[in-house]
């Protein structure tokens, strides 16, 4: 019923068959390829290299989990894809190849479009949507929810006012908000935290995006609401063959929903590969330390877990060489503190940037 309301009905009617012939998931061509992305912040105290040469691919119908802690550049990477990095940040290098149309295979470098160009505006919030950790900040408190979803649909579809309203009601119902028709006329403060998060997902999804970028969408929520949201995202993904870039520091969430994992530390990718490899055979000392130091449902009562020494350095005090070396268990004096490791393939699936695997 939702698809029938779209102006691009003919396209969407043919593309599912086209994609279903292709092998689903990882073997399909990536919908987004990020190459050598560098986003720097030009502050009075100096240049902060928030994103410093990041590479990854996102495939249709799959979820790429980007794991990292504060200051690792995961959110700035996401914002760079949509070119919504706030000043004094600027994308200084790299490519973001986006495959616009599965049929023709036309691929464009998003960074060739200006941040405020018409092409970028038509992609942002339309073909590529984003949801945030703080739903309160992504809604205007001065407009009803209906008005705000209407704006998104007006920009990205050719629907009439009534059709847009109907689609909005439909999406609110699909994300599980009771009395959707009435809620369309209400202001965001009337929604609870979990409802607001779901309303934001409805707004991001109503334009039928090919890629959804989710920046810590469940971090502020209770586990029960988190389970609802993860469930919802996965159902939406199955229906639309949508790719999801899921940013989080929660390894449990990664274990639940990611197909592939990219681990970042201080602006760089330290490890990437399929989710099973990451959990069964993590390669980078940082990945290993994270997996053993964070309690999970496996942890026994009163069990001591090994801790990672030190804390994350301030981005302006980036350690020399490998940024993780002051906290690393496998630190090699004279190598790790002097040279920077490169991200290299260590086997068919996994890429790691660590001198432990240099010879492989």
């Amino acid at each position, binding site marked *: 019923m939702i698809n029938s309301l779209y102006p691009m009905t003919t396209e969407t009617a043919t593309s599912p068959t086209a994609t279903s012939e292709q092998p689903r998931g990882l073997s399909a061509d990536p919908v987004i390829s990020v190459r050598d992305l560098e986003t720097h912040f030009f502050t009075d105290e100096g240049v902060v290299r928030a994103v410093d040469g990041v590479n990854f691919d996102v495939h249709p119908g799959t979820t790429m989990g980007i794991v990292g*802690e*504060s200051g690792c550049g995961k959110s700035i990477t996401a914002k760079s894809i949509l070119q919504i990095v706030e000043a004094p940040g600027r994308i200084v290098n790299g490519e973001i190849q986006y495959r616009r149309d599965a049929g023709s295979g036309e691929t464009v470098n998003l960074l060739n479009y200006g941040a405020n160009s018409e092409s970028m505006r038509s992609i942002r919030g339309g073909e590529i949507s984003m949801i945030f950790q703080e739903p309160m900040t992504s809604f205007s408190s001065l407009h009803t929810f209906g008005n705000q979803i209407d704006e998104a649909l007006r920009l990205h579809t050719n629907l009439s006012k009534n059709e847009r309203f109907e689609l909005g009601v439909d999406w609110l119902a699909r994300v599980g908000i009771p009395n959707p028709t009435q809620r369309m006329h209400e202001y965001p403060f009337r929604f*609870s*935290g*979990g*409802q607001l998060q779901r309303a934001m997902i409805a707004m991001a999804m109503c334009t039928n995006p090919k890629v959804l970028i989710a920046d810590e969408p469940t971090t502020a929520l*209770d*586990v*029960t*609401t*988190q*389970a*609802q949201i*993860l*469930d919802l995202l996965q159902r939406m993904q199955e229906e639309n063959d949508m790719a999801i870039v899921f940013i989080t*520091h*929660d*390894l*449990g*969430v990664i*274990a*639940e929903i*990611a197909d592939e994992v990219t681990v970042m530390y201080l602006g760089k990718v330290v490890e990437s590969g399929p*989710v*099973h490899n990451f*959990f069964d055979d993590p390669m980078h000392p940082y990945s290993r*330390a*994270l997996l053993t*130091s*964070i*309690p*999970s*449902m*496996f*942890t*026994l*009562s*009163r*069990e*001591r*877990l*090994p*801790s*990672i*020494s030190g*804390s*994350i350095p301030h981005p302006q005090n980036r350690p020399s060489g490998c940024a993780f070396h002051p*906290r690393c268990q496998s630190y090699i004096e004279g190598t790790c503190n002097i040279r920077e490791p490169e991200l290299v393939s260590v086997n068919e699936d996994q890429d790691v940037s660590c001198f432990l695997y240099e010879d492989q």
Partner: protein
Amino acid sequence: MTTETTQNGNGRSTLLDVRGLVKYFPIKRGFFRRTVGTVKAVDDVSFDIQAGETLSLVGESGCGKSTTARSIIRAYEPTAGEILFNTEEGDTIDLAQLSLIEMRPIRRQMQMIFQDPFSSLNPRMNIYEIISEPLLVHGIGTSSEREDRVAELLRLVRLRPEYMRRYPHAFSGGQRQRIGIARALALNPRLILADEPVSGLDVSVQAQVINLMMDLQDSLGLTYLFVSHDLSVVKQISNRVVVMYVGRIAEIGTPEELFDSPKHPYTAALMSSVPKPHPSQRTKRYVLEGEVANPANPPTGCYFHPRCPFATDQCKVEVPPLVKSKDGRYVSCHRADEIELTTE
């Protein structure tokens, strides 16, 4: 429920015994601030804490876990109930009856650690001033004795005493939280109330603080009342866990009991919502329907009945009491003995 003092059978004595604790907040409206309703934040909560154990309060936001902790230390005035505290001197005192002045000496034995290590330390005070302030307030020691004590406390939380004259901005989140712990320990308290002490920290430094808290507990014989929404951390640190839902207790048990064989349907739903730690364990998520009840206008009977798959007509009208089940666990569910629950 808490008449037996050694219910764990491990010879511990009861340090704190909370009986029928109630905390209502009035909802005021209009020019004359008339009370138009009440939020039943904590509604008849009873549990006890044994000396030397870690008891955790868990539940979703708004379930009253923080309000319970704050009512115990009298940051909030309890509406009703008894808070029986066994002091160092061997007396049992009902904290709910004390005036704020009478409460002051008790606070030496009961300290709090807060969630946000950035807002809980005064940025205009150096570390020596922050940690020695409780000593100053209680008039303990001379200036040089206080300095020695601060140095000792800093060593205890694995920070270098030389840092004493630095200001909070020079420290990372994990270090600040350790400073907060040092301040809480300054008066040699017996009970520490920790409200989400690691939630504001990066995951790679959480283990440092958790390990420190467990080490201090062993070496100083501390008792913790630990409030958290992170069930994995709770499972790791706790001896016993109190599960709360809309101001009431659903269930009390050891972490293993609650995670492996919950008796209350809400406990089961909560535990099964926690992400599984490995991708090979992905299962169909058991998603709890509906929203948490509004504590200003809770449903009749069992507060959980509108979301409960096992609810009967009895659940809609009758509030289930917290009762001790056959195997010594505390559950408030009419059907606890007949239903089979799993967290898969």
